[in-house]
């Protein structure tokens, strides 16, 4: 086997393995098994090949080959488009939708994972060519993988808000959770069912930034979708009364969400809410703006 091929295969394997490591099939069942996985593994392999070939091409002074990297970027953007289209297409058939913001976030993560694979392969092949040691190269590749994975890890709800259960009660026909009014429920029978099956959760944001992040509609929908994916829902088509709803108290930023879970377990629901992702697109940091800081200082 030629030296080039040997080195290429090592960095290709490290890259592909890192895509396997980044693949997570959990409660979300996404990417779906087995076809979705095969698709992404193949894309991962292509990404690894591109990362592995870049440096040898440069060494061989084949500069046109390096331009392939730009092609790669284009290719990965198409992965994002593919994921977005996929998820948007199945959205209509979901009882509780993911929401556009969540879909966009998922699609972005899939694209980013492929960039990680390219970088891991690039590091591995770089180390192989400079230090000529397989062990260092493979270890180096995996270290880069772990660092990048850490960096890519987004926040979860427990990091921005305190999550506790709330009290469900009715003010006439108005469904309330603690001091937050959610919706008007006209039928007595439905009200009784809501009291029986509902579990209310209150999110108390730690600061104004968190409060503004939570107010994003996509963020609310993402929490609801994630919890329903894990805890199930007692709702069928044509039963809008049992749709989970999130409403915010604009005075203190607290958010109330009511769920009608299949598994009636308060602790588990709280855990599911706490572990929900904070969407990249929903995150706001007004405290880091000049106007926001000024308002905060004046106690606004």
């Amino acid at each position, binding site marked *: 086997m030629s030296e080039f091929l040997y080195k290429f295969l090592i960095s290709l394997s490290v890259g592909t393995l890192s895509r396997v490591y980044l693949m997570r099939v959990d409660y979300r069942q996404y990417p779906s098994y087995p076809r979705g996985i095969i698709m992404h593994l193949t894309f991962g392999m292509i990404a690894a090949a591109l990362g592995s070939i870049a440096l040898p091409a440069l060494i061989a002074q084949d500069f046109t080959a390096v331009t392939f990297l730009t092609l790669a970027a284009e290719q990965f953007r198409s992965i994002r488009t593919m994921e977005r289209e996929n998820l948007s297409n199945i959205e209509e058939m979901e009882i509780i939708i993911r929401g556009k913001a969540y879909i966009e976030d998922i699609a972005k993560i899939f694209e980013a994972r492929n960039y990680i694979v390219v970088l891991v392969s690039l590091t591995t092949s770089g180390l192989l060519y400079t230090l000529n040691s397989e062990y260092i190269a493979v270890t180096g590749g995996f270290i880069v993988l772990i660092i990048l994975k850490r960096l890519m890890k987004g926040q979860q709800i427990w990091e921005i808000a305190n999550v506790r259960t709330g009290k469900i009660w009715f003010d*006439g*026909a108005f469904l309330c959770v603690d001091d937050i009014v959610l919706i*008007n*429920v*006209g*039928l*007595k*029978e*439905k009200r009784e069912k809501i009291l029986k099956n509902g579990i209310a959760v209150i999110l108390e944001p730690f600061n104004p930034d968190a409060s503004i992040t939570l107010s994003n509609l996509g963020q609310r929908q993402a929490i609801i979708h994630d919890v329903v994916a894990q805890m199930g829902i007692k709702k069928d*088509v*044509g039963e*809008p*009364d049992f*749709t989970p709803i999130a409403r915010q108290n604009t005075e203190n930023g607290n958010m109330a969400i009511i769920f009608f879970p299949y598994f009636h377990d308060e602790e588990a629901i709280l855990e599911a809410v706490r572990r929900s992702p904070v969407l990249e697109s929903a995150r706001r940091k007004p405290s880091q703006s000049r106007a926001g800081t000024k308002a905060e200082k004046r106690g606004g």
Partner: protein
Amino acid sequence: MSVEIKNMILGIVTHDKSKVSGGFAPVFYSMNEEESERLAFVVAKITSGMVHSLGNGVYVIVKH
């Protein structure tokens, strides 16, 4: 692509004729409060809407 009428009153149910007059939504009159609830439930089921109570014996069905 499907077209749906959302966030509009699809139907009104009441047993008190003096409370509702005119409007674009069909009005269903009932004999008493109990029948109103049942009627509202049926209309909501048919339209996949949700029943809201105005608190004065008038129920409106809205699809969200």
